[in-house]
């Protein structure tokens, strides 16, 4: 059911949502960019609809709401372990079409990959999604090439349009108490991007020895930004913390990991199976455009273009993939 509200009415409804849910949305964090007097767009908890960053794509994705950067799995004392309680409040996440598709990739890994991850499932079941439309393409996204430019599995859709706010609220709870003009609202989506990507179709293990990995990998500084910004990278590493003032107590955490950063493939005994950046680059790219697809039927990459936009060394993931496709002819 579609609605048209004034801004004030929409914000009143938004306040109602905030009472019921922990609301997360992309927000412009002033001065929190990498460099002095630069900003960053990442997920935070907005007070009003205007606090949400509607124009720019978020530099870091929504995934940190479902998969905390640091997540305590359990606390331990000498003879007990305690699993922390799941969140008390339900969660509402504002996100774009590409990210709605990324959500299915997170589900693949944490719910459909042989066993369910209880921590993920707990949060996932409590979370609802509000789609933000795209009236024009972002600079680096290639959602059209990846078929992720449209999403229809949302619980709500919100569009700020000057002084009016349009909503589509298929989830009844979101529409509760909404008094406004009813009309048909369909989400905005783009049909063309600045970037077009052609995926290589016939990748085999032969490509492992291709020089292209060295060409791009040798420029990589192993910072991991591409992974951390990616909405579909889901790797964690484990950390056991023994509290300083009482090392008999502590906690086990899982913490985001990156296949580009040193240490990712170090195994017991110290052997590191992907030591150089070329191998790491190959692993990442093939995982994104081929390996995940073999198991789940769709690529892991959703074409949001965040890795392209964030790489400090201007290593273009888009160029790399298109080059792989060109080689196939």
């Amino acid at each position: 059911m579609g609605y048209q509200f004034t801004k004030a009415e929409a914000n009143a409804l938004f306040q109602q949502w905030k009472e019921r849910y922990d609301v997360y949305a992309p927000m412009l964090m002033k001065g929190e960019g990498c460099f002095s007097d630069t900003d960053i767009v990442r997920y935070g908890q907005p007070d009003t609809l205007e606090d949400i960053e509607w124009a720019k794509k978020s530099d870091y994705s929504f995934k940190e709401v479902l998969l905390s950067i640091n997540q305590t799995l359990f606390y331990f004392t000498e003879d007990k372990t305690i699993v922390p309680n799941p969140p008390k409040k339900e969660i509402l996440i504002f996100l774009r079409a590409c990210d709605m598709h990324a959500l299915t990739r997170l589900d693949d890994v944490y719910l459909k990959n042989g066993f369910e991850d209880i921590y993920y499932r707990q949060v996932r079941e409590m979370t609802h999604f509000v789609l933000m439309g795209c009236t024009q393409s972002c600079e680096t996204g290639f959602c059209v090439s990846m078929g992720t430019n449209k999403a229809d599995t949302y619980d709500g859709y919100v569009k700020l349009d000057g002084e009016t706010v349009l909503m589509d609220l298929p989830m009844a709870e979101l529409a509760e108490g909404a008094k406004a003009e009813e009309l048909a609202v369909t989400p905005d989506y783009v049909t063309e991007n600045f970037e077009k990507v052609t995926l290589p179709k016939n990748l085999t293990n032969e490509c492992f020895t291709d020089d292209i990995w060295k060409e791009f990998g040798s420029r990589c500084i192993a910072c991991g930004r591409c992974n951390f910004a990616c909405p579909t990278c889901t790797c964690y590493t484990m950390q056991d913390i023994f509290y300083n003032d009482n090392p008999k107590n502590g906690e086990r955490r899982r913490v985001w990991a990156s296949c580009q950063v040193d240490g990712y493939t170090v195994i017991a005994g110290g052997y590191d199976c992907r030591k150089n950046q070329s191998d790491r680059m190959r692993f990442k790219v093939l995982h994104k455009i081929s390996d995940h697809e073999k198991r789940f039927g769709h690529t892991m990459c959703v074409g949001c273009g965040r890795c392209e936009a964030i790489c400090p060394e201007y290593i273009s993931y888009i160029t790399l993939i298109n080059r792989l496709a060109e080689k196939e002819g």
Partner: protein
Amino acid sequence: MAMDINTKKIKRNAFRVSKKRGYGACRIRVPGGYLDSKVLGMVQEIADKYSATGKIHLTTRQGFEIEDIRLTDIPEITRAIQPIIEAVGINQKDPYTGYTESGTRNISACIGNNVCPFANYNTSALARKIDKAIFPNDLHFKVACTGCSNDCAKVRMHDFGIIGMTMPQYDPTRCISCEACVKGCKSLSVGALSINNYKIVRDTEKCIGCGVCVTKCPTRAWTRSQKKYYKLTIMGRTGKKNPRLGQDWLVWADEENIIKIICNTYRFVEQYISPNAPARKEHIGYIIDRVGFEEYKKWALEGVELMPETIMKKCIYWNGIHFTDKSAWTD
């Protein structure tokens, strides 16, 4: 041809009397070295019209020196450079009077955070702000602004050097223990970071607020403080007697108090400058050497209320090279 020129007056007006009789140079000051490209065209126009050789020197203090102008053209040139003065935003008592009072030198700056990834503030904006506060003034002051502790502007060679700092803010919930900050601080800066229980510990005594950790962090666990901080180094100088590097006086200081201190120092110099100083030019440092740092502090800190986090060095010792002490030259 008879040529009657008041050299004291034209020098005060930022003109130079050159080696070649009848000729001089016209100095154009650009605070912070920051200008619209159109100013270059204006400078060229003046040089084409008035310079006998069409040569310009890019000065070490980020100005232009249009060489080989005829001293007799100075009144005309003074009027002709007015659009440049307006374009670079120089303080002037009256228009069409050129750069009145040029003893205080152009405030120079590194490129700053308009461009440089390391810089912690907009150096040219601060240079302009200080320019407005202290010009026109004929006392011999040198002030420079630099974006970070790399000190590309070499501010430690100045009476007042302003070095940008940031108070790094750490959000452990965003930290993934990649240690990019630890490695960055160690290799590029002072090694103030260590890791404990997978989280970062910043040694606040060691940290110089360069912000390397912030630029290295891949997850925005490290961010810059909203407030901008500065280090104030004082009484560095070049020269023929005792060149030396400026020493840290204030650390984690703010812009307003630094400007106040510079303005106060003008009053201090007015009070204590040697009556024998040639053309009333004496490096402030020598005056402080003579009257003592404690006395200087009294004057400089008048009306200054430092923020609680600002650290003020109680006493400063400068050394440098003493050319007057020849015993240091023999072994």
